[in-house]
């Protein structure tokens, strides 16, 4: 179902459409929230709050942006608000200053272990880098859309993406083809 049809059905009171909207976007919301919020229970609560806000404000959404961009923006902002409430600083530090913890390396490494290793490294990155990487790679947003979601300038988004990928390659290159036990 097209987003416009979906939204108009939700606004018309169609409960199935409300369910469909949640089912369609919970993966995206989960990605954005889980990259910034650490605890699983907190993640779930923030994800719920994102959708509560989406439904509350859906009347005022006029498709100036894609529905996914709008929902991701809400998820990003609510996650930052949550971190502030929990007195956990939103990390925007320099990527080069982060000391990454890498596991113990044994023998051959499967693709799924490599992916797990990469995601472990991403979780150690500053919040801005994590978000940009996730939005670009996992959710397929374009640079202008990431700009809209995060409020960062396009140059910064491109720079973060380039540096994050470079760092991941640097860190993982020596271990490709080996087994890693995560700390």
């Amino acid at each position, binding site marked *: 179902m097209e987003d416009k049809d979906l939204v108009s059905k939700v606004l018309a009171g169609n409960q199935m459409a409300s369910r469909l909207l949640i089912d369609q976007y*919970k993966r995206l919301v989960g990605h954005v929230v*889980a990259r910034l919020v650490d605890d699983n229970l907190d993640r*779930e609560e923030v994800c719920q709050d994102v959708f509560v806000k989406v439904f509350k404000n859906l009347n005022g959404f006029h498709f100036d942006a894609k529905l996914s961009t709008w929902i991701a923006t809400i998820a990003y902002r609510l996650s930052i608000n949550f971190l502030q409430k929990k007195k956990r600083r939103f990390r925007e530090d320099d990527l080069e200053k982060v000391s990454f913890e890498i596991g113990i390396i044994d023998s051959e490494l499967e693709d799924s272990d490599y992916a797990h290793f*990469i995601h472990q490294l991403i979780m150690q990155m500053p919040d801005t880098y994590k978000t940009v*990487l996730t939005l670009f790679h996992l959710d397929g947003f374009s640079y202008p859309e990431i700009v809209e979601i995060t409020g960062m300038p396009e140059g910064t988004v491109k720079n973060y993406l380039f540096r994050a990928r470079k760092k991941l*390659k640097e860190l*993982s290159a020596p271990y490709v083809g080996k087994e890693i036990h995560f700390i």
Partner: protein
Amino acid sequence: MENIDKKLDKALNQEFDFQLPADFTNQVLIKVKEKEAKTDKNMFWWITGLSILLLASAAGILIYYGNLSAFKPLLSYVPWLFIGAGLVTVIQILDQKLVKEKLNVS
């Protein structure tokens, strides 16, 4: 060995270890309904509180001046009071019809 760029792309496009529970959709819809009920309740208490305040003020004026002539200067505001009350009622009805029914959870 597979090119590291390809391997990295594949890894970055892969889901990470977080999944929302199976009943997440229901939980959200229940939470939406709870929030609406809370808003309705707040509205009820606001209206009740305001009505009590108005009645208490009227009673105070009546007791202080001892007769209804004290209300004469206020009579010119009566039509506005009715218009205001009417508007609040219309907004409430529209809100109920257009917004609240949207997310009814059975």
